[in-house]
């Protein structure tokens, strides 16, 4: 039976800085010891507003980077897109504001024990957790290539320092405002056929993840996908964040993306059943 990330804790974290980067806010939190348990792919769940807020649920955000050096001790970085009321509230909070944070949550990306050729694919803010992942993979001796995509340039999150941790970085925008005009899956088939990819690590919209899986299907490439389903609790108690996932024996169950994910084996996720009725439900 799946369990919530054992290291998860609830704490009050101070905002150290909040900077705008393109369409995103880069928010740095002081989280102390928590950083020691954060792995690339984990996320945090943050309370919105005060006691009189009408927004009663936490919001989930991928951990973009952590550091335990620096003057503040452990710090954790988020890349937040101001989307609806909750994320807009978060983006409008200034320095020294205290946030109620639960984390680290969820299953992290699996790290290979031997050096492999890794391809990291991020859509929009989905790139946030990939740079930290790249560093870890690099340290393990992997070759790390990265492809980022977004509809337009301001939605590409690709920090300078992040670029240093990858062997190559390609950017695709749908409107061509940065990098190549197109989408992240455009070059994939060719790269796989050329034998340049052993593992794909992906994070982005469900549509993007499903498209990647389609290309990977039938090849030897392993696909670790970080999925994004609406979450009410983030800790496995509400059953809202489920996805249909096949077990070894082929039987499909609805797994919680907050504790059996967000990182899942792309080959196991039944992408075409997401949002569909299946099996004996009523």
């Amino acid at each position, binding site marked *: *039976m799946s369990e*919530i990330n054992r290291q998860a804790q609830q704490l009050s974290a101070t905002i150290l800085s909040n900077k705008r980067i393109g369409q995103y806010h880069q928010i740095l939190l002081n989280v102390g010891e928590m950083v020691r348990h954060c792995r690339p792919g984990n996320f945090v769940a943050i309370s919105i507003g005060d006691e009189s807020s009408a927004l009663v649920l936490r919001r989930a955000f991928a951990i973009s980077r952590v550091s335990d050096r620096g003057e503040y001790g452990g710090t954790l970085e988020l890349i937040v897109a101001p989307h609806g009321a909750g994320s807009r509230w978060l983006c409008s909070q200034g320095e020294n504001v205290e946030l109620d944070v639960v984390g680290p949550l969820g299953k992290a990306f699996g790290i290979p024990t031997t050096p492999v050729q890794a391809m990291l694919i991020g859509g929009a803010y989905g790139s946030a957790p990939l740079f930290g992942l790249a560093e870890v993979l690099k340290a393990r001796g992997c070759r790390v290539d990265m492809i980022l995509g977004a509809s337009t340039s301001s939605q590409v999150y690709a920090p300078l320092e992040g670029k240093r941790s990858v062997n190559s970085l390609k950017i695709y925008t749908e409107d061509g405002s940065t990098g190549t005009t197109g989408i992240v899956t455009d070059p994939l088939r060719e790269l796989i056929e050329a034998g340049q990819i052993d593992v794909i690590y992906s994070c982005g919209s469900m549509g993007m993840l499903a498209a990647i899986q389609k290309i990977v299907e039938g090849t030897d490439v392993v696909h670790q996908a970080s999925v994004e389903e*609406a979450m009410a609790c983030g800790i496995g108690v*509400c*059953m809202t964040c*489920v996805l249909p996932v096949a077990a070894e024996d082929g039987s499909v169950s609805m797994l919680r993306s907050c504790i059996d994910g967000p990182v899942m084996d792309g080959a196991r996720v039944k992408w075409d059943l997401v*949002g569909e*009725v299946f099996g*004996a*439900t009523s």
Partner: protein
Amino acid sequence: MTNSFDFSTTLSNAWFPTPIFTASGCASSGRELSQFFPLKNIGAVVTKSVMLKARHGRPTPRMAETPSGMLNSIGLQGPGIDAFLTKDVPWLVEAGARVIVSIAGETIDEYASLARRIRSVPGLSAIEVNISCPNVENRGLVFACDPEASRAVIDGVRKTLGGELPIIAKLSPDVTDIVAIARGVIEAGADGVALINTLLGMVINTETMRPHLAGKTGGLSGPAIRPVAVRAIYQVHQALPKVPILGMGGVRSGRDAFELVLAGASGISVGTATFGNPTALIDIQKQLQELLITKGFSSFRDAVGFAHRNDDVDGA
């Protein structure tokens, strides 16, 4: 002062050290929460409504946030009674938790079959019968919305179960006369009632211009519905003062729990609040105890239904 305060409560013949419980479906099987606090420290764990067979539940999206609340349409996803009894219950009992098992069926027989499996399971405190499910034998009408069907379900469970385990019938607020439904299930053999399940609601996604939930409608919970819960508890306690009530609906603080207690609840389930705050149960429990002591109560039970004092004098 705290030492001499009696925080315990009972629901029929079941005793609990504190009146703060999880709400069915809002704490999964308990395990996930146990990381934030020991489950034995709260009054009881009410488990997610379990059915006879394993179920996938509804497709996603299964939830929508609403002003001071949320809609859910989980569709009773679960492992089925057998896996539940072999895996989850022993774990909870082992963890020292008081366990209230919630059951749900699509037919009157299914409820009775569930009761049959549960009958001999050791270590349970009570059984909550969630009758807010569609009755597949009767035009999909929700059991709890139909006085006859509600009665029939409880009658079946009572007969199967014998007299040991307290039966708490969980009612839906989506009815014209909740007192009549409560009266019916008590007559049919329930020892208490749980008030309230979620209200039927809908959110339309203004981007897609369609119902937001894959299941179209969902259950509304959270602080938004607290006034409806307080009203339902007050009405039922007024009409049936001896019937124990497990109250729930939008409790997020000790003050909120106190409101339901004053209305007549002998126990309080906390649901949606846990999603926003994993330690909500512990916080609420502490705040409620402090509040009761500050107000001069020497035992929790003295506060139950206290808002009704002098009801006659008021002419109510």
